[in-house]
């Protein structure tokens, strides 16, 4: 049975929105415009954060602090961390792809709350600009992206307060987004579409949004208390006034550990969309994939104290958090085996999208292995706050999330723009990124094990050579953005026309024109109950409603 959702009348407010390229600079309510706004805005911040990372790696080519003043180094590493997390990965894997894809996936014409959605996006550019300009006003925050008190209380207040305000704005943006995703996925599903028929990215976004809604307010509250300590000289965390510095860490990590899953769960979802299409096979183990997302969400909320093994936690707490943390590897492992099983026996088109996805799998496996190691208290005690953690973390968020962002851009670019990207340049981009990434971060495991702490501008000269290797890798990563930028800009104008469905994919966003019309489908939305029905009987027999888009 197909139930149709009639298009809304053309007389609504959306038709009054600017059209053409101008709409990308306007307060648009169209989820696709907002999605691309998130994506482009996030990418601009990625370039800024990457430039800061390059500055850090230049400083670290020599063991002495010679490239920049030491406090500027701390400001730059704080800005780098904050920008990459709050302005690039979280907005892009959630906001950009979530906004663009979720309404298609649930068969809706827009998000549940389009205005809230636009507000959520428009909080980001001012927050990001404010954060960056704080560097030029009175010096940016310099206590790291964790802003541990008492350091964050004792460093110059102006930069720290601006940092807090901009993180609060970005947190607000992500809560608005989270509420919107939950409402859209649960309430705006096309009639006839069951939860267990949704594409996997919907599940990932549902789980992520619950994490966002549950944990981000805790961060907000914590940062408000911290700002009271800085401005009003209260004593919540300030030990001089009787405050407890460990309480801040508990509260901070209650958000910031789940934040890792806020960055990687959507990435898991995106990979689950990309692999079946290009290997022409159904997503292996749909049900276990869904359950493992739920398990990761639950476990993700109860493991925060593993960031505090060295900071003074009782033994029982260390044990509990060791076990809880290590067990996240089980649902995560299931997902990885299922992805490999999706590839297995397929007809894989080895294109850039799947190369980045497979690069993600390999990188994330290494990051996951070091993660299980880090969960073990005795191991963690030695390497905590060292370059080993820097390496592990970048394998998770760069090797994980950023590789998936690139994979997703290569996969959905034809839908965004109606044009194809150049495959050869794409592969070149992948190769340089993959080599550069591994050259940059793999040696850092060794650095950490052998005695190089993180967040230092100067270090023992015995580590100079390995740091130079790492900086060479960072240089390659910086270079890798050039072919990518050229590709996306050139192809937007001159790329071959993609057609509606260049990958012959079965998920619903491909069953409309590229780029899609304002209300997503010219007629009624198609009911796709088998988003991964590859390799089955001709689709007309098994899934008659799939061709609806063409019938109108």
């Amino acid at each position, binding site marked *: 049975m197909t139930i149709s959702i009639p298009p809304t009348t053309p007389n609504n407010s959306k038709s009054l929105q600017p059209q053409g390229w101008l709409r990308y600079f306007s307060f648009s309510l169209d989820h696709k415009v907002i999605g691309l706004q998130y994506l482009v805005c996030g990418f601009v911040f990625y370039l800024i954060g990457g430039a800061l990372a390059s500055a850090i790696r230049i400083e670290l080519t020599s063991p002495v602090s010679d490239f920049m003043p030491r406090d500027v180094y701390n400001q730059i590493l704080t800005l780098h961390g904050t920008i990459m997390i709050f302005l690039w990965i979280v907005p892009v894997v959630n906001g950009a792809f979530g906004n663009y894809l979720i309404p298609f996936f649930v068969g809706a014409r827009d998000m549940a709350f389009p205005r809230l959605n636009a507000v959520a996006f428009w909080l980001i550019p001012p927050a990001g600009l404010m954060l960056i300009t704080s560097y030029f006003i009175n010096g940016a925050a310099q206590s790291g992206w964790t802003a541990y008190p008492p350091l964050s209380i004792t460093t110059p207040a102006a930069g720290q307060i601006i940092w807090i305000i901009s993180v609060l704005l970005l947190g607000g943006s992500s809560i608005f987004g989270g509420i919107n995703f939950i409402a859209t996925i649960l309430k705006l599903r096309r009639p006839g579409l069951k939860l267990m028929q949704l594409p996997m990215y919907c599940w990932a976004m549902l789980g992520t949004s619950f994490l966002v809604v549950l944990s981000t307010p805790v961060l907000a509250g914590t940062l408000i208390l911290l700002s009271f300590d800085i401005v009003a000289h209260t004593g919540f965390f300030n030990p001089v006034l009787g405050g407890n510095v460990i309480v801040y860490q508990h509260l901070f990590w209650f958000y910031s550990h789940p934040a890792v899953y806020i960055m990687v769960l959507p990435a898991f979802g995106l990979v689950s969309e990309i692999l079946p299409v290009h290997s022409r096979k159904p997503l292996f183990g*749909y049900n276990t994939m869904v359950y493992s997302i739920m398990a990761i969400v639950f476990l993700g909320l109860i493991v925060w104290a593993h960031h505090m093994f060295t900071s003074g936690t009782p033994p029982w707490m260390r044990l509990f958090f060791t076990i809880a943390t290590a067990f996240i590897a089980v649902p995560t*492992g299931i997902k990885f085996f299922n992805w490999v099983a999706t590839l297995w*026996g397929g007809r894989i088109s080895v294109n850039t999208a799947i190369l980045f996805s497979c690069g993600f*799998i390999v990188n994330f496996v290494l990051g996951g292995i070091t993660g299980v190691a880090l969960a073990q208290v*005795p191991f963690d005690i030695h390497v905590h706050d060292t370059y080993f953690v820097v390496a592990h973390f970048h394998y998770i968020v760069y090797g994980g999330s950023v590789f998936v962002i690139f994979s997703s851009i290569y996969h959905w670019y034809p839908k965004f723009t109606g044009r194809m990207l150049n495959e050869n340049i794409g592969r070149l981009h992948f190769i340089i990124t993959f080599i550069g990434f591994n050259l940059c971060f793999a040696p850092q495991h060794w650095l950490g*094990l*052998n005695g190089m702490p993180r967040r230092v501008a100067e270090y023992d000269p015995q580590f100079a050579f390995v740091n130079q290797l790492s900086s060479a890798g960072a240089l390659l990563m910086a270079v890798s953005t050039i072919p990518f930028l050229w590709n996306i800009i050139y192809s937007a104008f001159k790329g071959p026309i993609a057609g509606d469905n260049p990958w012959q994919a079965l998920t619903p966003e491909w069953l409309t024109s590229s780029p899609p019309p304002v209300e997503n489908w010219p007629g009624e939305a198609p009911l796709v109950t088998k988003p991964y029905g590859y390799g089955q009987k001709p689709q007309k027999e098994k899934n008659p409603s799939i061709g609806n888009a063409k019938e109108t």
Partner: protein
Amino acid sequence: MRKWLFINNLGIYLGSLILPSLTAIYTILISLGLIIGGIWVGSNVNLLPVVASSNAPIYDELFKVLFIIGTLLFFGMLGLVVYSLIQFRRKPGQTGDGLAIEDNLPLEIFWTAVPAIVILFVGLYSYDIYERMGGMESLGANNQHHHQMASKQRIWGGIGSKDKSMQGANGTLIPVEVTAMQFAFLFHYPDGDIISGELHVPIGQPVTMKMESKDVIHAFWVPEFRLKQDVIPGQPTILNFTPTRVGKYPIICAELCGPYHGGMRSTVVVEELEDYQNWFAKNAKKPDLEV
């Protein structure tokens, strides 16, 4: 060359799980090969600095086990992915989709159970390691006679010293009070009222350190001891260790503590008992003290 053989063979191994037509002999051979390879890598590649405390060899045992399992898993997954990309790539002229395998319950149970068992094993093993390092001992229990204050204050985290025989060959336990500040460590020996910028300890004698910070959070880390503990303002922490190798090792502050964080370094000097006693006698305010 051998690595590529592993990867190829591993592909066949997992292939045999999915496509039962491949032989069981391969499965066994390749599993064995991968395990032996993993153990070889874990045993022959040393990524750690020298061992200089009684905790370090225990830590290194755990590291070795984790390294073996990690190597196995990483090359296993890498092999599977690379093998899939090569073996199952779309050949020219090939049309149509892959096999429509959507799930396989026994297989999914298998790869849920195996990681769960491995994780459980690693968790229990690391618990044992932690116990042997003295992590589960109640802190401050063995240094109360030195610090009557300790029983009144709440002591936070740290590695205790489990082994009662660690109370030293001649029954001594060297107490040190560590004060961290931007950007230095100060070591106070209450017995001799010595204040030093360098930590001097005799080989083979257990040391108990009570650490407190004057300003921000610092961390006391000696990579060669495999020990780290944050030094926290307002909350003393305890760290016990026994040095086992003569030499000078860096003490590194591992927690971001301000602009000169990278320069906040000191040295721990592990010396023979005699040298330590000389140093102590030379610096002690009350020369009549026992060591």
